[in-house]
């Protein structure tokens, strides 16, 4: 029964954390609702203003129910969220859940590949920088990390488009796939790379891969900047650890010491940080999608914002908020499980 106190404590912590998440979600939902209603404009005047008389606009607003008491709309909204029904978009009458699933899949695909790029760049450059501290390699790595972290994602994206698409002609400048592939490819998962593999359509796979290279690299580099600095610092710390000294004292080769003892341990904190970067990735994805015309949920959010479609906007933002809350909850729980000190 030695593990019982540990388990009970973790369960209590999880329940407490969950209980705290609920008011957080409620506050978020309320803020989203109020902000959307306080902001001027509505979908009717966005679409038909300047075309039909003011009275007719008002009639149409009333017919659509936009003038109902806020409190009625608020409770209706909360009720729908509780049923996981985000309603139907006003602009193009799509169920918001479908928007989240379809366009969310495009965003998921982009962020996953971006994460792979971020980890690839972040870990490799961070390890090299840390291992060769204060050498030109380290300085170059640090400088690179700062630059990509500081550069706005749309700027990097634009640069990538100019260089690799327009000048060199290596990769397409926009979209998830060429228009013909988009139409011909069956998309049961809406993750085009996976769908192309399922269909055993190699040409489509290459086409999709070519389209994802620039946006994923752009987004990945921005996040990679954080990883470079984190990995470098961890490598420096672990290389100074007693157990590294002990390993060296045991006569292990420098290569074994560095690879098997220092680097592996230096990467542990990265796992925690990955979760924390999700919000940053989602934020970056909105801008990346805009730059590369990637039909993800971020692009859709902007489109609905421009059309004042507050049903769609509140649905998508609520989804984002719930996602970030859920991820932070999972990270907290994993942390608590890994490190019991967190629970106290």
């Amino acid at each position: 029964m030695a593990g019982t106190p540990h388990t009970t404590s973790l369960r209590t912590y999880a329940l407490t954390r969950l209980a705290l998440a609920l008011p957080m979600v409620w506050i978020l939902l309320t803020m989203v609702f109020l902000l959307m209603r306080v902001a001027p404009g509505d979908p009717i005047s966005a679409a038909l203003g300047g075309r039909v008389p003011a009275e007719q606009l008002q009639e149409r607003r009333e017919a659509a129910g936009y003038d109902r008491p806020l409190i009625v709309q608020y409770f209706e909204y909360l009720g729908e969220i509780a049923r996981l029904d985000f309603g139907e978009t006003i602009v193009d009458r799509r169920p918001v859940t479908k928007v989240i699933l379809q366009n969310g899949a495009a965003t998921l695909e982009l962020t996953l590949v971006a994460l792979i790029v971020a980890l690839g760049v972040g870990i490799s450059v961070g390890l090299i920088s840390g291992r060769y501290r204060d050498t030109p390699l380290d300085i170059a790595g640090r400088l690179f990390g700062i630059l990509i972290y500081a550069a706005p994602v749309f700027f990097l994206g634009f640069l990538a488009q100019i260089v690799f698409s327009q000048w060199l002609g290596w990769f397409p400048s926009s979209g998830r796939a060429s228009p013909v592939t988009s139409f011909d490819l069956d998309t049961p998962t809406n993750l085009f790379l996976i769908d192309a593999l399922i269909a055993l359509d190699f040409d489509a796979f290459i086409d999709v891969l070519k389209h994802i290279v620039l946006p994923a690299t752009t987004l990945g580099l921005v996040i990679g900047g954080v990883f470079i600095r984190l990995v470098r610092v961890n490598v420096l710390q672990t290389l100074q650890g007693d157990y590294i000294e002990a390993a060296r004292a045991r006569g292990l080769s420098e290569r074994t010491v560095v690879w098997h003892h220092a680097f592996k341990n230096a990467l542990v904190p990265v796992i925690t940080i990955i979760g924390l970067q999700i919000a940053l990735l989602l934020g970056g994805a909105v801008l990346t999608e805009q730059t590369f015309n990637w039909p993800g949920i971020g692009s859709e959010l902007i489109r609905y914002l421009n059309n004042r479609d507050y049903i769609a906007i509140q649905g998508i933002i609520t989804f984002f908020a719930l996602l970030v809350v859920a991820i932070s909850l999972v990270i907290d729980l994993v942390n608590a499980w890994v490190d019991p000190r967190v629970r106290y």
Partner: protein
Amino acid sequence: MGRSLRILLLLGAALLVLAAGGCGGDDDGGGGEGATIIHGTTDQPVSYDPAGSYDLPSWNVIYNAIWGLLSLPPGGNQPEPALAESCNFDNPSTYTCKLREGLKFSDGTDLTAEDVKHSFDRNNRINDPKGAAPLLGSLYKETGKVTGDEVEVVDDLTVTFHLNRPDATWPFIMTTGAGGIVPSEYPADKIQPDAQAVGHGPYKIAEYRPGEQTVLERNDDFYGEAPKNERVIIQYFDKSSALKLAVENGEVDLGYRNLTPTEVEDLRGADGVEVVEGNGTEIRYMVFNTKLEPGNNEAVRKAMAYVIDRQAIVDNVYNGTVEPLYSMVPRGLAGHTDNFKTVYGETPDKAKAEQVLEQAGVQTPVKAEIWWTPSHYGDLSADEYAEIKRALDGSGLFDVQLKSTEWDEYSEASSKDQYPVFQLGWFPDYPDPDNYLTPFYRSDSFLNNHYKNEQVDKLLADQQASTDQTEREEFFKQIQEIAAEEVPIIPIWQGKQVAAVREGITGVADTFDPSFQFRYWLVAKE
């Protein structure tokens, strides 16, 4: 280190191999009648149900896949039979159409007079907030209500429209997206999902992925001439800069609508790209609230009309992608006259403006607050109004204060007596001068600028009641003359239709006419 470097090198090599595969143009089966045309645009549709849309992007697809009884032929500005074999006024308020025999919807069902009645009735009954039911005002007395007598099914192929007042524009209204004919299986009281859009036209809607693409495929059962291509993919772009890049890289065959003048200018010099221009009927104008100072004084309005420099706006702001406009009725429409040019001249005339103000005893400089919006008519509105201010202030007769606000607030405030002078724009429902005169000059105008002239009201009513085109054009001429004399509105410019097309794409110029309908069936890839 060694292994990590090897992995990095392998990744790099893989990317190079990928890149070596090339990008740019898509392999779409080459040119000719089997070709796929890829049209890039930033215009996104609302709905492909004729009862649920009142926007150009939706109507453009409806014009290609869900035809109405009448249509506007390429280059023409008078309605011609489409699904109908013939349509005629029995009297000024009764209009009868005879359908073509043997028409079938894209789902294989027969297209009959019952479907025509169903299409119009449901449009008005649904009265969708984003739909065009108000256009059917001369058929249905009240939007949202249908008595059932408005559209009479005479027999399987004959249908009669009983208008509640004489309306010469009715044939034009039938050519709009609101006149698209859908099957009786479409719900009578709600919008049909876009995935199940059905109609009869040169194309069928094969797929619609909002925000991504619409795919049109050739309709082999179309009664008319087959399209010059097999498939059209309309690819949506969020930003015109991305569209421009896609045109340059050959990722789309043509980029049409909303490329900025600077982007158009850049594309003029790009390899393998040709810029095609055509007559457009989109207009911009400046409205005076005739109840508020200084626009409540006709002399001030006239003086402004004398000194505004349209050519400077065309050259300095829009790089020649628009043309000066000297009447609310744009060039290309039957009945257009350049009255503002006749009365106020083509170039600014400070002396005449000064004289008008002096005769009216107006002290100069006249203070004027002019409003514009940055969020509805494009980013160049700021430059356009800066140019207007420059001309007015430069004359020494005016002291202009420019003010701007977001569209949401702007659209409401401008019609509620809050702005003395303000910017607006118009996009036609149909290419008839009525659509450029009645909404603006009738005393119950949506502008709510308090302009009232009983003679104009009568002339507007008369032209709507007349089915004689020559007589109507005479009425239009008189209305435009009065409008230029009294200046409740100053027309500024009329846009051209501009597309950037890749080498080998033909037919785009053929579809550029005042109807603003993009007829994909004319476009071919060599």
